[in-house]
């Protein structure tokens, strides 16, 4: 690997640093860029000013099906698919752009940022690996993230059919008081 292209490497570093800015974990960087682990570590420390968090990535598919994460995940995957289908974007470019657009939406409406970039990346991998898919809500027709193996014939989304006490968390109660 001695005769690597400098331009290609610069592009990889650019991609890695924008991913780090958005909050990617080291595992995401390792699989999406061709840079070595040492360089990624150095880059991470330079951009963030601290060492990357250690430990495994969150890997539960069920997390994406709980009420609030499901709404955020559905919003994100909608944007991502739009970029891939309509604009023929590369996978990782579409991920970064879709995540930026998602963050914009969250900030515009002053919502909590539920989906981190790492989670968004995992979500896309679950879609590629066909663990999760989207299905149409029977009432509103929007596309929502569901388990591929579940039955979806009478699916109602979490926004048409809000579960009782959804979104009424302890933290929210405390901020109101």
């Amino acid at each position, binding site marked *: 690997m001695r005769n690597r292209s400098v331009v290609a490497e610069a592009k990889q570093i650019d991609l890695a640093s924008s991913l780090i800015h958005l909050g990617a974990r080291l595992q995401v960087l390792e699989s999406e860029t061709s840079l070595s682990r040492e360089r990624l570590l150095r880059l991470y420390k330079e951009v963030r000013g601290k060492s990357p968090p250690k430990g495994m990535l969150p890997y539960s598919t069920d997390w994406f099906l709980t009420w609030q994460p499901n*709404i955020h995940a*559905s*919003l994100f995957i*909608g*944007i991502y*698919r*739009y*970029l891939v289908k*309509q*604009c*023929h*974007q590369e996978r990782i*470019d*579409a991920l970064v*752009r879709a995540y*930026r*657009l998602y963050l914009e*939406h969250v900030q515009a*409406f*002053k*919502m909590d940022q539920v989906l981190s970039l790492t989670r968004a990346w995992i979500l896309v991998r679950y879609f590629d690996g066909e663990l999760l898919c989207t299905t149409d809500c029977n009432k*509103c*027709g*929007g*596309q*929502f993230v569901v388990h591929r193996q579940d039955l979806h014939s009478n699916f109602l989304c979490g*926004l048409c059919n809000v579960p009782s006490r959804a*979104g009424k968390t302890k933290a929210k109660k405390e901020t109101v008081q």
Partner: protein
Amino acid sequence: MKIETLLDEVRETNLAYLMLAKHMISEDKAEAAYRLGVSEELADMIGSLSTGQILKIAGSNMLMCRFRFDDQMIWNLVTSHSKDHVMGNVHAAILMGSQAVETV
């Protein structure tokens, strides 16, 4: 409203809309296509318009932009005065993302 002022305002809106669209497309085409709700081909076409062409299109008596949603459901979501208008907007965004796009 007098017809002259009406036409002037239509032209002004057209011009502002087209300039904004062109600007957004030159910044980042994919993001602009998502925001505008158009296909990549149409975004390419708008992006390649010259200033003279934009002026020509904008000088029409018809509006060049139109309503994004023709769905009663989305209208209700974005206009509702209920407490949870944030959730309504997310819902609308999810529905709009899965809608068909404007193509050439």
